[in-house]
């Protein structure tokens, strides 16, 4: 909407996506990217707080956390890790395709990324329903019977908070990718203008990056 007022901008080799308050596309791209990175820093610190809490409580109740983590399914965790890594790969290829004006490839890779994200959530769904069934729930809803080491509920508090928050990020990422997909189909992107693909990619990689830490910390501690 903001482009309408000063249509003159579009004339000088800059694309129609130049917003009125930028002088040229490079500047706009730079700003968008910087903005996204700043936002990613806030995400790192948001999750970071949870990691800090997890680390401190783990150090305080090592036996309980150790015992509790056996309830997690390493295989499912590993599968999800691989799925997310692959989705990151397809995402970066989508960016590459946009950078090199390969529209069809870009669309294809975006769809693949979405598929991977979907698989991730499905696996997560099975994991969750299994936990629900066993009463391995956070905090006061923990009803699992027959624990030998007390205090395991706290592990699951963190398990659900961390994977839950991560899951929400996956969902948001999927929405963003969907929107990029629509725009890619519309033919918005080219080597001249691809910053939305790029910054959505950044976001998606961060979601992957966080999982890279969640996986060993929750599934693999020993």
């Amino acid at each position, binding site marked *: 909407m903001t482009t309408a007022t000063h249509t003159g901008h579009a004339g000088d080799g800059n694309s129609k996506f130049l917003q009125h308050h930028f002088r040229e596309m490079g500047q706009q791209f730079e700003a968008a990217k910087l903005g996204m990175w700043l936002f990613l820093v806030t995400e790192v610190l948001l999750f970071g707080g949870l990691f800090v809490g997890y680390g401190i409580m783990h150090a305080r109740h090592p036996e309980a956390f150790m015992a509790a983590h056996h309830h997690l399914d390493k295989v499912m965790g590993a599968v999800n890790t691989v799925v997310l890594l692959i989705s990151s*790969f397809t995402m970066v290829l989508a960016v590459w395709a946009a*950078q090199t004006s390969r529209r069809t490839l870009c669309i294809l890779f975006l769809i693949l990324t979405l598929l991977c994200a979907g698989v991730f959530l499905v696996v997560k769904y099975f994991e969750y329903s299994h936990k629900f069934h066993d009463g391995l729930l956070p905090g006061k809803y923990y009803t699992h019977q027959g624990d030998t080491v*007390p205090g395991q509920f706290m592990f699951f508090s963190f398990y659900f908070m961390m994977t839950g928050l991560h899951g929400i990020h996956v969902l948001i990422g999927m929405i963003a990718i969907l929107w990029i997909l629509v725009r890619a189909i519309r033919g918005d992107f080219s080597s001249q203008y691809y910053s939305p693909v790029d910054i959505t990619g950044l976001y998606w990689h961060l979601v992957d990056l966080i999982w890279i830490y969640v996986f060993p910390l929750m599934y*693999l501690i020993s």
Partner: protein
Amino acid sequence: MSHSAEHHVTGPKTYAAVLGGLLLLTIITVYASYLDFGSMNTVVALLIASMKGALVALFFMHLRHDKFNAVIFLMGLLFLAIFLIWTLFDINTRVTVLPTNLKAPVQAFPGAPLNKPVRPSTGQPVGTPHAQ
């Protein structure tokens, strides 16, 4: 800010190699979780995770060619580290005081199991059950 003009375009081959590296590291970390490095277990796991993280950040997120944003990202990590280290600093140096006439320390805390050893750092019994 004109250095933005040249965009480095990395090709699919590099990306595929990076993915290969990431998958390999995933296998290694799962494998390593079956080995016992004693107190170093978590360190090893985190080291491998950080290698993976670095691959993602440097290649997929193009930080290799983006010094400026790399600095910003590292700032985030730095301040997270400050948060963790400063907090641990207080928690780990807190002195434990117990009253000398404490008969059954564990009973001093409602909900604590009886006859369980007390963790000296917190005066808390080891592993507290959840309140039913």
